[in-house]
């Protein structure tokens, strides 16, 4: 199946409600982020440091993952390695069946979205309940996250009131606290009756076996401590070598993601309940998921993609995301990071439009707290998409043919000038009322929204030649 973006854009651009919700929400996130970043005098230094730590970690990923595994086991946890999403799901479903668990309390995890954890749990009748408010809204409205950090960013308060009224019987209200209190009351019951909690992981510390998970609602700690079983799922790229690295990464993450100095809660999870402790899960499992990551790791040109800490700042700052939002991408990960991650986690053929859904403006790189060169990676991926298209097609694709013709014309001054003169001679046929209109491919997209400039009588070089002849 191929993911498409181009066929989705006109619907989202003409969705007045979405456009009205999107811009102020992102503007708010951006301003909060900018303020929080401005407070840190050595922000650039921290970015570089984080970039270097990630590069080092990725260069010895096997070592750090095995160290993490040993530490987690030493603390009484169990570690499961999953090559694919399907393997991770098989383990989780098997475990829940074995324990005869009826209900699962879930906290927000993009990896869970990536491997379609909820669908699988629902299919096997495990009744997963999202406990992050945004994710809960998304679950109730049967959508997918609109944004990797704020999944229900596109929903207005009124839409949430409608949804809770329909799904939870909440009386109409204008009071945000009443809305959250409704969700809170429902979710509390779920926490107390869930047999297992599933959470994601922001950072897995190899040195100590600690899993750091950030949140603002306290739901992660409930998922990780109330049920008898806690399953943490973690992409293999989320390991960091030392506990002290967290000082840098947590700062970069919270300020970039939500503009907070620190999230309201930062959980440091060190395995199951120990002797003498009165809370915490009886059993703790860490599921390390590859699902295409080691393939990315093997590619030196694209490897830095794995440094991503999922802060979502590149989405907020992206002019394309600001206009089309998350769902138009059709993929788990959206925006600039989604544009580079999706074709790598699947294949260039499976997401052929993702690398092109960018003006290459570079705002993402400028904002990225770990300095991932997203625009340069997009360019590499574009090259791969084009190569793939030419390999698979029976005839040379039109665009490739046009580029070959263009290169042929541009690599000889004679052909170049001839073509320029030709265009200038034919262009008067396209001028109507002093405006140039070329409503035909490949100009039709341009023509639909913008006027083209009329062409000059003579090229620059011709005019310069004359000037120089006159001795000016």
């Amino acid at each position: 199946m191929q993911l498409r973006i181009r066929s989705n854009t006109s619907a989202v651009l003409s969705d007045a409600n979405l456009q009205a919700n999107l811009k102020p929400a992102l503007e708010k996130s951006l301003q909060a982020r900018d303020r929080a970043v401005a407070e840190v005098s050595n922000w650039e230094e921290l970015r570089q440091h984080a970039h270097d730590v990630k590069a080092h970690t990725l260069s010895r990923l096997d070592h750090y993952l095995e160290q993490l595994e040993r530490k987690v086991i030493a603390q009484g946890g169990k570690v499961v390695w999953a090559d694919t999403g399907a393997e991770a799901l098989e383990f989780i479903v098997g475990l829940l069946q074995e324990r005869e668990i009826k209900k699962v309390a879930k906290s927000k995890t993009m990896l869970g979205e990536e491997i379609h954890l909820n669908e699988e749990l629902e299919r096997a009748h495990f009744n997963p309940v999202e406990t992050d408010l945004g994710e809960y809204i998304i679950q109730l409205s049967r959508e997918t996250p609109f944004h990797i950090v704020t999944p229900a960013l596109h929903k207005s308060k009124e839409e949430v009131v409608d949804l809770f009224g329909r799904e939870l019987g909440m009386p109409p209200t204008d009071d945000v606290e009443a809305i959250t209190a409704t969700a809170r009351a429902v979710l509390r019951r779920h926490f107390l009756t869930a047999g297992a909690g599933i959470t994601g992981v922001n950072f897995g510390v190899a040195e100590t076996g600690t899993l750091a998970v950030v949140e603002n609602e306290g739901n992660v700690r409930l998922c990780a401590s109330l049920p008898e079983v806690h399953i943490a799922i973690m992409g293999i790229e989320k390991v960091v070598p030392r506990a002290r690295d967290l000082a840098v990464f947590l700062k970069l993450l919270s300020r970039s993601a939500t503009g907070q100095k620190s999230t309201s809660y930062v959980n440091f999870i060190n395995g199951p309940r120990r002797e003498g402790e009165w809370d915490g899960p009886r059993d703790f499992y860490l599921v390390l998921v590859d699902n295409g990551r080691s393939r990315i790791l093997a590619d030196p040109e694209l490897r830095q993609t794995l440094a991503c800490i999922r802060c979502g700042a590149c989405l907020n700052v992206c002019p394309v995301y600001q206009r089309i939002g998350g769902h138009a991408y059709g993929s788990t990960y959206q925006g600039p990071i989604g544009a580079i991650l999706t074709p790598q986690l699947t294949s260039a053929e499976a997401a052929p439009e993702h690398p092109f859904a960018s003006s290459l403006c570079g705002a993402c790189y400028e904002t990225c707290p770990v300095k991932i060169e997203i625009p340069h990676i997009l360019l590499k991926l574009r090259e791969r998409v084009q190569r793939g298209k030419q390999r698979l097609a029976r005839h040379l694709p039109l665009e490739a043919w046009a580029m070959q013709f263009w290169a042929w014309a541009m690599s000889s001054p004679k052909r170049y000038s001839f073509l320029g003169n030709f265009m200038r001679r034919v262009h008067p046929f396209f001028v109507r009322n002093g405006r140039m209109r070329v409503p035909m491919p490949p100009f039709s997209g341009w023509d639909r929204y913008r006027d083209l400039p009329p062409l000059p009588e003579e090229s620059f070089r011709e005019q310069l030649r004359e000037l120089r002849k006159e001795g000016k």
Partner: protein
Amino acid sequence: MDSDPAPVNLADVAMKVSLFVTCLVDQVFPQVGLSTVKILDRLGVDVDFDERQACCGQPAFNSGHADESRTVARRFLEAYADSGPVVVPSGSCATMLKVFVPTLFPPDSREGRLAREIAGRTYELSDFLVSALGVTRTGARFPEAVTYHDSCHQLRELGIGRQPRLLIQGVEGIRFVEMPNAARCCGFGGTFSVKFADVSAAIGEDKVDTIHESGARYVVANDVSCLMHIGGLLQRRGSQVRTLHLAELLSKFEE
């Protein structure tokens, strides 16, 4: 304005540059090339124009057609192998030459070395004027309200945002007003503007809104491609605001 340095008279300095005018300027916006020549002439810089030049290879490169881009970039390298400093009145073409063309060839190949060598002596116009010549006043006079749009490659790949502003503020009689989010993309993006025409135009509409918000009569940028996109949207909207390339603005002097 009094603290600005006086115009530098370089008439007696033997300075010769090679103009890479870009294909779009050559074929569609010749006035930008002529303006660039006028500015450099007035500053006493000898301008060489090599007629072998065509394109830098960027359209193919940005769309993922590396082989075609390489074919065209190779011609550029041949034409400029022995030239003096290369001056380019475009942030994005200068970026192609300075940042991306060197990546198209193996680092140790003859072409790789040549590409890096030329990249080192290639200047975007405003950077050449301010950083290389130390000029912030070209002697232009333009008593109008003007705002400036940062083109993305120039600002974020080359780090050039201060130089054009200094030059604009050095124009006599000008009223320079910053638009909100001047550094936000206009949505052009090369082939993006046709592949995702609707998204490109929607982003452009945001840019046009901020241009109008500034109250300026003219929007200046240093890339004719961005200006073609912004200007096309302005015209479609029936706006009174006009686009102006930086070189056109800086050459508005009595001859």
